[in-house]
C-alpha cells in the first residue's frame, strides 16, 4: 500500500454528501407527473378458496383509476404467476389465498384515502380450507396440499415433489455415513430450532411503475435489478429489454428486496390506469412480505474416543410459508453448507416445506445462520461428551487450505484458524462473576463458513472522459454496503486517479450490463473484478496513446496521480492533455470486461468434483455473557468477531458491514421472534418486534478483519456482507451454556427461556 494506492484505504463514501443532507432519493421520495397511489387488499384468512370477487362498487369511488383482481390478469397462468424458484405466486390471488396477508386485489387512486375507501368496497367471498402452520402438520399424510397444480420452474435443481407440500428436497453425501456411525465409539444426536425473524430494513418496500410506448419502466428498491427485469418481462410477455428497471438508493435490504416484490401488482395497475402508479407498503405490511425461514435441524455426529468426529448426519427442515420464494434455493444452500470441519463421512438433507404462514425467503446468510446455530451448539455438546475444550475441538477439525469440501472441491483462501483464534483471543479467559451479584458468567465461541454462489457472471465498463475523470458502470445497487465506493477505488487504483475524479454511472438496466445482483456478498469479488479488468483495458489504451505522444516505449512509462511520465526522464503529460492531443477535443476512452465464475461439475484425475462456491468467507464469534440468576436475563459483556475478507479494500466499509451484521445477530440471539398464532402475525411492528437499539449494545464489540488473499479476487478481496451475523447466536448460547451449565437449542434466548433452562424445564 503506497501513497498512490486507492485500494486498502478507507476512502470516503460516494454517498456521504447525499445521505447526510437528505438529498439521497429513495423510491418513495420520487414523484412522477400524473402519478396515482396504490393500496393492497389482503386476505384475512390463512387458507381459503377465492369463490367470488366483485370490485364494481370500488371502481365507482371518486378518484379511483384502476382496480386489479384476478379478472384483470391474463388467462394464461404462466403470465399470471411468478416466483424466484417456482412460479407459484399469483400477481394477486387467483384460485386461493394461502396466508393471512396474501394480496387479493389492489386499487390505484388519486389519493390514499380514496384507495382505502375503494378497498373497503371490494366484495370478496371465501370458502375456508384447512390450514397448516408447521412443517410437521404440512407433511402429515392425507393433509391439505397448498399448491396441487404443476408449477413452472424459474430455477431448476431444487426438486419439488409434486402433489405434496414439499417444494424443495436436496441431499448430498460423502463417504458412507451409515457405516461410519455404526463404527463410531459414540453417537450424539440433537435437534436445534430457530424461529421466523424479520429483516427489519427501515425503508418499506416501494415501487413506481409507468408504461411508455409499450415499454414498462419501474423505479424500485431491488437488490437484483436484472433479475427483477427478466421476471417482470416474462410476466408481461415482453422481451427483457422492453422493461427498464431504475434503482434509486435502497434503505436496507438484507435479502428482503430481491427478485419480485411489489413490481407485479404495480405494473399491472399502471397498465390498467394508463398513468404512473406508486405503492409504498405500510410498516405492518412489510412484515408480511418475506421473512427468514424458521428451521429445525436434526444433527447426529459419530465420534471416536480419541476425540475425532468421523461422521455427521444432518437433516434440515425449513418452513417457507405459503409461497416458495427463494426457499428451495435456501434449502439447497443448506445442503451445501457442510460446516468448516473436515469430517470424512457427511450427509446433509434439506427439505423446504409449504405452510399457511407468511412467505419466507432470502435473509442475510442464506441458511447459514440456521445451520451454524445447530453445528456450533452441537460442537459444544460433542466437546462436553468427549471432555475436551470446545475451542481445541474446533481447531483440531477445521479445514486446511487445499482440503476437499463435501462436494470434492478444493478449498482455497479459508482463514478459519486465524478467525477463530483472533475472536477467541479478544475475549480471553472467562472472568469470574463478582461473588455477591447473583450472576453467572461464561464464554463461548462459534465459527461459520459461507460459500458465495457459483456459477455467476458480471460485467462492467469504464469510460475515461475528456476531462481526465473516469465513469464506472458497475451494475451493483448501493444498498448501504458501500459497493459504489469500492468500485470507484478499484478503478482509481488501476487508473491512478484521485477520489473526486472517479464517478459512478447511475443504476439503470437500459445502460448497464447484466448482473445477478447485490446478493450472496458477491459484488466486490465478481463485479469488482469486471471493473478492474475494464479499467485495465482503458489503462492499456491510455499507455499506447502516451507512448506515441511521448515518443517512448510503453515499458518505460509510469502512470501515477493522473499523469504519465517516462522513467528516468522529465517528459510527461497529464491524462486530459493526452486525451486532447491524441483524440481531439471530445476524446473518450472506453473499456469493458466480463467475468464468469464457473460452477458445477469439474473433471480431474480423481473423478471430478462440484464447484459450489466462487469463494469462501468466514466469521468467527466469541462472546462473554453474564446471566442473572433471578431473571434469566442475558447481558453480553463482550462480543468479538473476526471475519476473513480476503483483502480489505476499504477497511472502514468492511468494519461497518461486519459490525452491522453482528448486531443483527445479537438481536436474533436475544429478542427477535416473528410470532404468529394460527397464521396471524402477532408482532408485526417495531413496537412489538424488538430490534437492537443504542441501549442494547454490548459493553465491547470488537471487529477483527482477517486477510487471506484470494487468487482470483480483485487485489485478493473476497466478500464481507453476510457472514458476521451467522455465528453470533451460537457463540452467545455457548457462553450462556458455560454460565448456567445447560444447553439451549431454541432461539431467542429470552429471559423466560433461560430461566426455564436453569430450572431444568424445557427451554
Amino acid at each position, binding site marked *: 500500500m503506497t501513497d498512490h494506492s486507492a485500494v486498502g484505504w478507507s476512502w470516503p463514501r460516494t454517498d456521504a454528501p447525499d*445521505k447526510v*443532507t*437528505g438529498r439521497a432519493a429513495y423510491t418513495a421520495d420520487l414523484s412522477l407527473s400524473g402519478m396515482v397511489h396504490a393500496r393492497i387488499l389482503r386476505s384475512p384468512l390463512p387458507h381459503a378458496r377465492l369463490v367470488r370477487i366483485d370490485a364494481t362498487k370500488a371502481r365507482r369511488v371518486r378518484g379511483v383509476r384502476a382496480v386489479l383482481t384476478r379478472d384483470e390478469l391474463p388467462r394464461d397462468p404462466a403470465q399470471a404467476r411468478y416466483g424466484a424458484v417456482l412460479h407459484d405466486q399469483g400477481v394477486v390471488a387467483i384460485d386461493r389465498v394461502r396466508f393471512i396477508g396474501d394480496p387479493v386485489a389492489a386499487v390505484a387512486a388519486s389519493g390514499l384515502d380514496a384507495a382505502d375507501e375503494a378497498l373497503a368496497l371490494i366484495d370478496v367471498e371465501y370458502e375456508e380450507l384447512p390450514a397448516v402452520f408447521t412443517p410437521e402438520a404440512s407433511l402429515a399424510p392425507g393433509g391439505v396440499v397448498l399448491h396441487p397444480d404443476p408449477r413452472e420452474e424459474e430455477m431448476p435443481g431444487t426438486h419439488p415433489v409434486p402433489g405434496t407440500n414439499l417444494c424443495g428436497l436436496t441431499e448430498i453425501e460423502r463417504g458412507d455415513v451409515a457405516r461410519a456411525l455404526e463404527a463410531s465409539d459414540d453417537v450424539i444426536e440433537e435437534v436445534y430450532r430457530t424461529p421466523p425473524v424479520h429483516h427489519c430494513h427501515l425503508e418499506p418496500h416501494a415501487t413506481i411503475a409507468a408504461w411508455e410506448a409499450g415499454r414498462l419502466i419501474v423505479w424500485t428498491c431491488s437488490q437484483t435489478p436484472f433479475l427483477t427485469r427478466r421476471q417482470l418481462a416474462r410476466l408481461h410477455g415482453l422481451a427483457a429489454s422492453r422493461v427498464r428497471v431504475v434503482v434509486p438508493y435502497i*434503505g436496507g435490504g*438484507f435479502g428482503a428486496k430481491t427478485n419480485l416484490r411489489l413490481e407485479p401488482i404495480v405494473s399491472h395497475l399502471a397498465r390498467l390506469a394508463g398513468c404512473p402508479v406508486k405503492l409504498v407498503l405500510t410498516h405492518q405490511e412489510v412484515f408480511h412480505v418475506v421473512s427468514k425461514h424458521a428451521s429445525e435441524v436434526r444433527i447426529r455426529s459419530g465420534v471416536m474416543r480419541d476425540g475425532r468426529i468421523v461422521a455427521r448426519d444432518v437433516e434440515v427442515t425449513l418452513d417457507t410459508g405459503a409461497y416458495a420464494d427463494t426457499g428451495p434455493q435456501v434449502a439447497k444452500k443448506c445442503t451445501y453448507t457442510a460446516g468448516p470441519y473436515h469430517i470424512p463421512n457427511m450427509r446433509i438433507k434439506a427439505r423446504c416445506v409449504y405452510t399457511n404462514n407468511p412467505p419466507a425467503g432470502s435473509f442475510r446468510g442464506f441458511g447459514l445462520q440456521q445451520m451454524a446455530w445447530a453445528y456450533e451448539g452441537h460442537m459444544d455438546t460433542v466437546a462436553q461428551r468427549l471432555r475436551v475444550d470446545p475451542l481445541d475441538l474446533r481447531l483440531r477439525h477445521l479445514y486446511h487450505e487445499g482440503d476437499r469440501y463435501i462436494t470434492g472441491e478444493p478449498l482455497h483462501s479459508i482463514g478459519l484458524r486465524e478467525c477463530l483464534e483472533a475472536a477467541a483471543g479478544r475475549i480471553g479467559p472467562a472472568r469470574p462473576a463478582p461473588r455477591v451479584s447473583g450472576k453467572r458468567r461464561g464464554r463461548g465461541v462459534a465459527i461459520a463458513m459461507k460459500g458465495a454462489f457459483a456459477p455467476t457472471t458480471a460485467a462492467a465498463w469504464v469510460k475515461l472522459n475528456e476531462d481526465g475523470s473516469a465513469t464506472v458502470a458497475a451494475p451493483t445497487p448501493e444498498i448501504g454496503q458501500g459497493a459504489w465506493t469500492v468500485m470507484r477505488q478499484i478503478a482509481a487504483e488501476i487508473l491512478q486517479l484521485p477520489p473526486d475524479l472517479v464517478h459512478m454511472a447511475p443504476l439503470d438496466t437500459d445502460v448497464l450490463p447484466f448482473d445477478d445482483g447485490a446478493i450472496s456478498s458477491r459484488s466486490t469479488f465478481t463485479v469488482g473484478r469486471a471493473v478492474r479488468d475494464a479499467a485495465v483495458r482503458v489503462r492499456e489504451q491510455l499507455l499506447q496513446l502516451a507512448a506515441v505522444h511521448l515518443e517512448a516505449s510503453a515499458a518505460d512509462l509510469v502512470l501515477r496521480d493522473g499523469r504519465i511520465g517516462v522513467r528516468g526522464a522529465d517528459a510527461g503529460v497529464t491524462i486530459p492533455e493526452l486525451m486532447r492531443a491524441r483524440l481531439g477535443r471530445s476524446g473518450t476512452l472506453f473499456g469493458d470486461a466480463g467475468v464468469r465464475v464457473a460452477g458445477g461439475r469439474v473433471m480431474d484425475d480423481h473423478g471430478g468434483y462440484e464447484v459450489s462456491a466462487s469463494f469462501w468467507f468466514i466469521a468467527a464469534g466469541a462472546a462473554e455473557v453474564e446471566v442473572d440468576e433471578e431473571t434469566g436475563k442475558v447481558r453480553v459483556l463482550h462480543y468479538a468477531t473476526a471475519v476473513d475478507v480476503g483483502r480489505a479494500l476499504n477497511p472502514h466499509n468492511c468494519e461497518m458491514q461486519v459490525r452491522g451484521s*453482528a448486531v443483527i445477530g445479537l438481536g436474533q440471539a436475544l429478542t427477535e421472534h416473528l410470532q404468529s398464532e394460527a397464521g396471524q402475525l402477532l408482532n408485526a411492528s*417495531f413496537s412489538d418486534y424488538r430490534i437492537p*437499539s*443504542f441501549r442494547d449494545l454490548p459493553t465491547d464489540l470488537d471487529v477483527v478483519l482477517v486477510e487471506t488473499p484470494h487468487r482470483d479476487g480483485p487485489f485478493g478481496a473476497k466478500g464481507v456482507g453476510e457472514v458476521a451475523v451467522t455465528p453470533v447466536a451460537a457463540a452467545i448460547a455457548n457462553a450462556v451454556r458455560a454460565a448456567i451449565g445447560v444447553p439451549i437449542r431454541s432461539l431467542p434466548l429470552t429471559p423466560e427461556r433461560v430461566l426455564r433452562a436453569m430450572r431444568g424445564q424445557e427451554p
Partner: protein
Amino acid sequence: MKRVVRMAVNGETVELLIETNRLLVDVLRDELRLTGTKADCGMGVCGTCTVLVDGRPVSSCLMLACLADGRTVLTIEGLAAGGRLDPVQAAFAEIGAFECGFCTTGMIMSARALLNEDPAPGREEIVEFMAGNLCRCTGYANILRAIGLAAERERHRASEGTPAVPRARGCSSQTGSP
C-alpha cells in the same frame, strides 16, 4: 375539513390549506417536497421522521400538521446554513456513520437537538437520548463516535471562535461540501 396552517419551515414562512387529519411528516414530504425526512413505522418508534419543532425533536408521524400552526419547523434540509454543513452532518460524513442512510437524517436531527441541549454529553447520555432512533445497518458504534466528534468540535469552536467543519482527513477531496 381544511384549515390554514402557517408555519416557518427551515426559516421560510409557509402557508397551506390542508385537511385537519394530515400528519406533519406527510405534509413536509408531499406538499413541501422536503423528502429528506423519512417515513417508516408510522407509530413514533423508529425515529426516521424526526424533525425539530420549536427546537424540540418530534416524531412528525405522530404530529398533526395543523398543530404546527404558528411554530418553527426545522428539517434536515434546513440544517446546512449558507451551503456549509452543520457540524453533526459533517461528522457523520467524515466518519462514515451511515450505510443505507435511511435512518441517517432522523439520527442527525435527534443528535442536533441533543447537542443544542447538552454540548458535552457523555456516552450514556447520548445512548439514552438517541435510543428512539433505530438503525439496522451500522451497529450504532460509528454513530456514537460521530456525535461525540461533532460535540467536541462545537465546544472547540465555541471556545476558539473558529468554524467547526475541517477538511476531511486521508483523502484529497473534501467530502463535507454539499
